[in-house]
């Protein structure tokens, strides 16, 4: 059973629709006790980093996620949810994240339109479980103005936007995706299916 964490930001329906389409049992909840029972967690989200992390702390979802990591429960962060998994972000000030993975979220520093919005090609760097079976040229859908920067060996994919941008990370059962798999057509559905099929 997959629990989608509702901390009050962003549209969770799309992720839920995709899981339903794939036949995966899941529920959306904003309650700590209910989410505790999930075997896997998804942290979605659209919006500002600070608002999101504040809401997460109010509901003790930071504790929920850190405990889940310790218990080796698979966790998938999408878009803002992905960014929240890292140590900090400089979006309107400097804010501390969940620290499930090592790295920082920085604003785009390139001479191109911001946000980076639309379909871009994934350059897969390592055999990450979520990317099993993907074709050679896989395009996914992005909408973001901030991006990951890490020196750790956790980056599983990059994409090119002015420079190589780190857009997916994985360490153990922690999965972080900057793009929206729930809006990335068949490729996105394959990635979500891979998450659903992870044994735990």
């Amino acid at each position, binding site marked *: 059973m997959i629990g989608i964490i509702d901390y009050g930001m962003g*549209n969770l329906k799309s992720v839920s*629709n995709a899981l339903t389409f794939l036949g995966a049992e899941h529920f959306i909840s904003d309650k700590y006790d209910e989410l505790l029972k999930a075997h896997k967690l998804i942290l979605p989200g659209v*919006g500002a980093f600070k608002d999101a992390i504040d809401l997460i702390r109010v509901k003790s979802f930071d504790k929920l996620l850190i405990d889940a990591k310790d218990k080796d429960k698979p966790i998938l962060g999408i878009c803002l949810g992905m960014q929240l998994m890292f140590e900090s972000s400089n979006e309107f000030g400097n804010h501390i994240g969940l620290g499930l993975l090592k790295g920082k979220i920085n604003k785009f520093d390139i001479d191109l339109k911001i*946000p*980076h919005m639309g379909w871009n090609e994934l350059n897969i760097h390592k055999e990450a479980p979520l990317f099993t079976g993907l074709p050679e040229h896989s395009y996914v859908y992005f909408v973001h103005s901030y991006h990951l920067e890490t020196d750790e060996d956790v980056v599983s994919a990059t994409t090119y936007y002015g420079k190589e941008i780190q857009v997916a990370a994985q360490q153990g059962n922690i999965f972080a995706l900057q793009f929206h798999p729930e*809006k990335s057509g068949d490729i*996105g559905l394959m990635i979500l299916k891979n998450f659903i099929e992870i044994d735990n």
Partner: protein
Amino acid sequence: MLCKRIIPCLDVDKGRVVKGVQFIDLIDAGDPVEVAKAYNKSMADEIVFLDITASSENRETIVDIVKRTAEQIFIPLTVGGGIRTVEDFRKILLAGADKVSINSAAINRPSLIDEASRKFGSQCVVVAIDAKYNNKRKSWDVYSHGGRNNMDLDVIEWAVEVERLGAGEILLTSMDKDGTKSGYDNQLTKLVSESVNIPVIASGGAGTMKHFKDAIIDGKADAVLAASLFHFNEIEIKKLKEYLNSENISVRL
């Protein structure tokens, strides 16, 4: 490389696709959900539903269509037509749309752009601009209400303003070119695209595959939209993308 997007636009009236869509092998060519599914298969990058329903009692129909579409296709979905308030935005977004397009409502009350982008994020606020060349001024005027009213507003001034207020994207229609099949207005598109730092979707005038290339290269469009050309299968999206790819334009294939 970020791909240039190809976007089919469906006019929906009281829950049915109007102007007719002539896809082969489509059980119900009037059902927006079926048509959206077919476009998803043919590698459309996004889908736009434009609700042209006149009466407000039929407005709920579009919400239901968005719901059913979002359950079955997993690419970005934009909905426009008749959206006037933040509450309208909420309804459409909760139904599963990713972006909401506003036109006259933004002109009448520009603060709607600000309110909606603060509430739901810039990424879901698309401002549609209908522009027509003014010979006297040697520039383009903005029109509202489906091109009926000249707002005495310069297109560049308005484009810069909507970006400042928080719009995430501009859907730019050339009224001079719309329906002519003589190509997009690349001068207009280039002018707007270079004046703002948000993506610009070119609309109006597509007739050949080269027109799409010109809008992207000469017009500097980030995305290109067409309606009847796709609906009547005059140009297949997949073939169009193969052509653009052969012209060294990055597209999702």
